[in-house]
Structures are given as structure tokens and as C-alpha cells.
């Protein structure tokens, strides 16, 4: 009267396939991860329903910090040098060849034109957004952003330029107005505001349009 013997099966599971999948996913995520570029200053952008992603080439980015300081950065190193070179020649800033080289390494510009020489000579670790004064942009008579944009437009003349404004959501409007006035003065009528995406509110004309399958305008 023995009990029927149940064959003891091995419970060993082959983990190889599992392991393969895990590492495949891992390599995918490693390759697709883009580490955030060091930013001039941390800003919290406002949100909009726009779904167009920002281009990261040929850009001239004007960053406005929450306390209203203005920074300018360019995505390409040679552009930085050309813009600074143009400023130098036009306004006679007395920058040397070596200064221009250093300027091309600067991730952003955050000083008045008169102190640009000492700014580009700052060691990289001192060039952080917290302590620097920013580009003066107080009112329409004392607005150096205009000079920067003037040089930018002459450097990018006939080429694609993505002029962008990245402002903190708490920037007072007059500062933003000074920046767009600087654009207007240089006939840069087209620019982009960097925002975070937010969902389109239900029931609005835009969501109806989207449902109808129409192409949303930018």
C-alpha cells in the first residue's frame, strides 16, 4: 500500500533568457538616456499645450532666471566665437584672439559687455549661474540684449536660427518685454518659447479639432 510516487521534478528555471532580456533593456536605456546638459541656471518653465519639441541645433537661447537676470547661450561653439567676435569688432571691446577662444568654451554669457573680457577669463568652475550678474536688460535705453541679438542675427544671416526664450514662470513681465523688444529691434520677429507640455483641456475647440483629426498648428 504505498502511495503512488510522484516524480520529483527539478524546479530549476533557466534564467539565461530572462537575463538576456534584462540586459537588452538595460542597454536600450543606457543608449537612449540623454544626460541633461549643464544649464546656466535652473528655471521652471511654464506649461503650454504645444506638442512641438524643441530643436537642439542652431539655437540661440535666452534664459531668464526667476530674479530677472538674462543669460544667452548658443548650441554651437564656433557660433559663440563668431558672435563674440562680431560684438568685439562692432563695439571695440578689446578682446584678444585668446579671449575669443575662451569665449567659445563658455556655456553661456552672463555679464555686461564692458566686463565681457573678465567674464570669459573666469575659470569654468566659477562660471555658475548663481553669482553672475546676467546681461543688463533693465529698460529700453540700457538693454544690451539688443547688441547680442544684433550680432547673432548678423552671424546667422541666411542660415537657420532657432531663437528661443526660456523664462522662469515667475519672471516679471517687464523683463520679458525688454527681451522681446530687443528681438523686435533687430527684426527677429520669429521666436520660440520653451514650455512644458500639458494636456489639452477637454471640451475646448483645440481638443475638438484634435479629435476630428485635423493637423494642429504649431
Amino acid at each position, binding site marked *: 500500500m504505498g502511495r503512488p510516487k510522484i516524480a520529483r521534478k527539478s524546479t530549476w528555471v533557466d534564467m539565461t533568457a530572462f*537575463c538576456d532580456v534584462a540586459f537588452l*533593456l538595460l542597454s536600450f536605456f543606457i543608449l537612449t538616456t540623454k544626460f541633461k546638459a549643464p544649464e546656466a541656471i535652473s528655471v521652471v518653465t*511654464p*506649461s503650454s499645450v504645444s506638442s512641438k519639441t524643441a530643436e537642439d541645433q542652431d539655437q540661440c537661447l535666452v534664459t531668464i532666471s526667476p530674479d530677472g537676470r538674462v543669460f544667452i547661450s548658443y548650441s554651437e561653439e564656433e557660433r559663440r566665437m563668431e558672435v563674440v567676435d562680431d560684438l568685439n569688432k562692432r563695439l571695440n571691446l578689446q578682446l584678444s584672439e585668446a579671449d575669443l577662444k575662451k569665449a567659445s568654451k563658455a556655456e553661456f554669457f552672463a555679464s555686461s559687455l564692458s566686463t565681457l573680457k573678465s567674464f570669459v577669463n573666469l575659470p569654468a568652475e566659477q562660471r555658475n549661474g548663481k553669482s553672475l550678474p546676467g546681461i543688463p536688460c533693465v529698460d529700453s535705453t540700457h538693454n544690451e540684449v539688443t547688441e547680442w541679438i544684433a550680432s547673432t542675427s548678423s552671424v546667422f544671416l541666411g542660415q537657420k536660427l532657432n531663437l528661443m526664450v526660456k523664462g522662469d514662470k515667475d519672471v*516679471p513681465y517687464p523683463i*520679458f518685454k525688454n527681451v522681446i523688444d530687443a528681438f*523686435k529691434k533687430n527684426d527677429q520677429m520669429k521666436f520660440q518659447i520653451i*514650455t512644458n507640455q500639458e494636456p489639452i483641456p477637454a471640451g*475646448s475647440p*483645440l481638443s475638438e479639432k484634435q479629435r476630428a483629426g485635423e493637423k494642429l498648428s504649431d
Partner: protein
Amino acid sequence: MADLGEGGGGGGHKKGPGVKKGKKLNTRVDLTPMVDLGFLLITFFIFTTTMSTPTVMKLFLPKDTEKPEEQNKAKESGALTIMLGKDRNVFYYEGILADNGSNFKSTDFKGIRDVILNKKKNTDPKDLVIVIKPSKDSKFRDVVDALDEMTINDVKRYALVDISEPEMQLINATQGVAPATPQQ
């Protein structure tokens, strides 16, 4: 670890008596820790990947013209002026501001959508133009939200204009603050 119990013995079936064989080494490697490590790293990369890529909102500015005949004209009946005040207050009036400020109304960002939609329903789409006037006390976010409202409500013609003095006074009176306190 990938098996339960059963010792480390490997797949041994009993050998008959007298059969002498060299001890077979089990070449099976337990991959469980490796899988663990793999998924741990995956979770790390998922969490550090910036999911929200920034989006852009395009804006085209009109050219400022001095000559009045070149300026864009807005029909009074189709105009809606939205003013942005302090602390996300929104003010609006239709057409031209009355001298006594009787058509000057106050709302907020939630209410302005209905105002725009109402206006849109009641006017000829050709004539509809919305004028956005941010005051000195408004924030960048308010301006972006107001512009966004134009996209949401599918308004084709809108303009960003400086605020005028009587409007500023009305806003200050409504908000109950002393006029134009400079910021910082």
C-alpha cells in the same frame, strides 16, 4: 536559487554499481543575481531618463509701424481685450473701454476661457481679434498661459500690446493696491 531545494547536486541519475566515471562538474551557472542586477540598473535608468522633453511655443511678432495707415486695424465689435494683473487676476472688456469703466470686468484664468468662447460664438470670425495686455505686475507664466489660451480656443488673430494708463488705473483700483509698486 532558480530551483527550490534539491541541493546543489545537479541532474544526477544513479549510476549502476561498478560504473566509475569521472565526476562531472555542473556547468550551470545561477543567473538569478545577474538578472537582479540587470533589473536594478534598468530601474535606475528609467528613473533618471528625462521623460519630459521641452516643447516650444512659436510666436510671431508683428512689426511696429509708426504710420497709422499701416497699422492693423481691429473692428470694435470684434475686439476683446484681456488684461493680466497681479496674482493671476484677469480683466477684460469688449470693444472700446467705456469712459466710466462700466464694461471693465474681472475674472481669472478659469473664467477667461468661457469669455473667449462666448465672444467667439457671437462674432464674425473675420472680425474677432483678441488683444492681450500684460500689466507690470503680471508674470511670464501668465503671458504664456494667455497665449496658450489662444491656441486652446483656436483664436487666429491675437496681439500682445502694452497696457495703457487708464487700464492700469482700473486694474489697480480693482485689485485694491497702491499704483505701480516697483518690483524688487
